[in-house]
């Protein structure tokens, strides 16, 4: 079923209902919204859920960033970057750290749609491109 403007509007409203006071997506609120939709499903239930998912997926990068480091021993790098991101984006910004061994060394930080990267993997990729 095609997404209509009305569905989009409702999905946006659902997203706003899912946020806590600090503007973060609250998991408990999301669960309660999903439960109430399941109990009393609207006619465009599937389309609405899809749109709600898209809205949430688009919103999340604006309030949280993803940090990838090659191993757990890079705690210092994580700490410095977390401090810098919080200073520039505000303390509401949450950081989701994860390990990515393919980076070899360095880091990859995603803030919204922007990706900041300084890793061996990226330099090798640049070298491959320049030689091909």
């Amino acid at each position: 079923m095609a997404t209509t403007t009305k569905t989009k509007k409702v999905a946006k409203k659902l997203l706003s209902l899912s946020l806590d006071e600090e503007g973060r997506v609250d998991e408990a609120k999301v669960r309660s919204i999903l439960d109430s939709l399941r109990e009393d499903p609207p006619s465009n239930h599937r389309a609405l859920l899809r749109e709600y998912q898209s809205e949430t997926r688009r919103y999340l990068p604006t309030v949280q960033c993803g940090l990838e480091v090659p191993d757990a021993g890079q705690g210092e790098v994580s700490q410095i970057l977390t401090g810098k991101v919080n200073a520039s984006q505000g303390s509401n910004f949450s950081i989701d750290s994860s390990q990515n061994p393919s980076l070899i060394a360095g880091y990859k930080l995603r803030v919204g749609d922007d990706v900041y990267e300084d890793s061996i993997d990226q330099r090798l990729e640049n070298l491959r491109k320049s030689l091909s």
Partner: protein
Amino acid sequence: MSSITDLIRKEIESLSTDPTKTNVGTITALADGVAKVEGLSKVMFNEMVEFPNDVLGIALNLEEDTVGCVILGDTSSLKEGDEARTTGKLLSVPVGMELLGRVVDAVGRPIDGKGQINTDQEFPVERIAPGIIPRKSVDQPLQTGIMAVDSMIPIGRGQRELIIGDRSTGKTTIAIDTIINQAKINKQGEESGDPDFRAVYCIYVAVGQKNSNVARTIKVLEETGAIDYVTIVSAPAADNPANQYLAPYAGCAIGEWFMENGKDALIVYDDLSKHAVAYRQISLILKRPSGREAYPGDVFYLHSRLLERSARLNKDNGNGSLTALPIIETQMGDVAGYIPTNVISITDGQIFLETDLFNKGIRPAVSVGLSVSRVGSAAQIKAYKKVAGKVKLELAQFRELAAFSQFESDLDATTKARLDRGARIVEMFKQGAYNPVPVEVQTAVMWAMQNDFFDTIPVNQIAEAVESLKEYLSTQGTEPCNEIYASGKLEEDTEQKLKSAVEDWKRTFA
């Protein structure tokens, strides 16, 4: 061995070690060569977007939540969820003299198996056309080598002249003849060592054509030795619509390099009907609103922004030029179709080719009534202007009278004379494919026709007589032609020499 390692070492040293910042998105849908990407919030219109496996795309639709990207390569390696990233670059193609003699695809990559193109210059495929101030009026001829065109529908350097007609009426042949003629003139000019000589470099853009047709065209250009002055941009029918849409712009960028560097260039778009169809396909997949014949609303702008880039620049801007010969294929001779009327209104004239004339053996099948060049005799050398001034009128009168005279058995002497002259002119204009005639020889033949030298020859032998005269003037009676070539004028003494040469030829022909 050490040189190879040195090469890699230098490459490593030149690499930036600073952190990079890129704007990324995720493919949410992929179909028919178009990817819908979520994210890419900082992407620019027409920016190149990089997908995994070195596949490139262009951002064509910037919507509130998603970006519509047209994929330029193989889409089979991409899938939903793949990352797309901006490059910060507009789509560019390599330009320069190194492209001459090469066959490239829509993004300027060589496809002729002759190795890499060693040029470090690039031009973006989409550029703003020159404004009014840097332009100059078209006043230098661009000889096609086709008598019917050079005499009645002269083309100037910097002009946009449409070649229009049904399928199989000789549209491409006219364009290829013109390219071959430029190569001939270039070789002659380079051999003469004339410092004022300006070569015309050519770009042939094949859009939506069969690969066999493109191969045939390349073969003709190679056999005639014209390939050294030509760059071929190929986006065949088997290519994806994005490449077919981009190819004319890529070719235009290559031509603009010549123009902006003070050189003259000629670009053939073969053909813009298929280009419009490719654009319609892309637009429909991108879900843009469709209009007449399902074309999007900006299909006029598609061609106007392309053809406006052809111009003649003034001396302050290098004096270069880019002449365009767009080709349009009509259906059942309907020039009032949507795309034909659009392109007719954009260009500075058209050469209309008629199926009936073609089938009657009148080739090139130029329709005198429907063909026009808005530049007119400003793009003719003085000598040619002198002899070809009345020929279009005479031929138009002939076609008019011929239609009426079919039902009349008893015609007056004037009508008979006009019909007789018209029939001879028609025969004179018959010309084989890939056999362009130098302008000085054309002038001499036209002079002979205007001065009644063909009047005693039966109409069915005129074509043979014209060929014989052309050969005579190119081999034995070369003096008057050389004088016309050198001065561009038909002086009285040249005319006398021409008269005696034609009389000599007539004795041998008789």
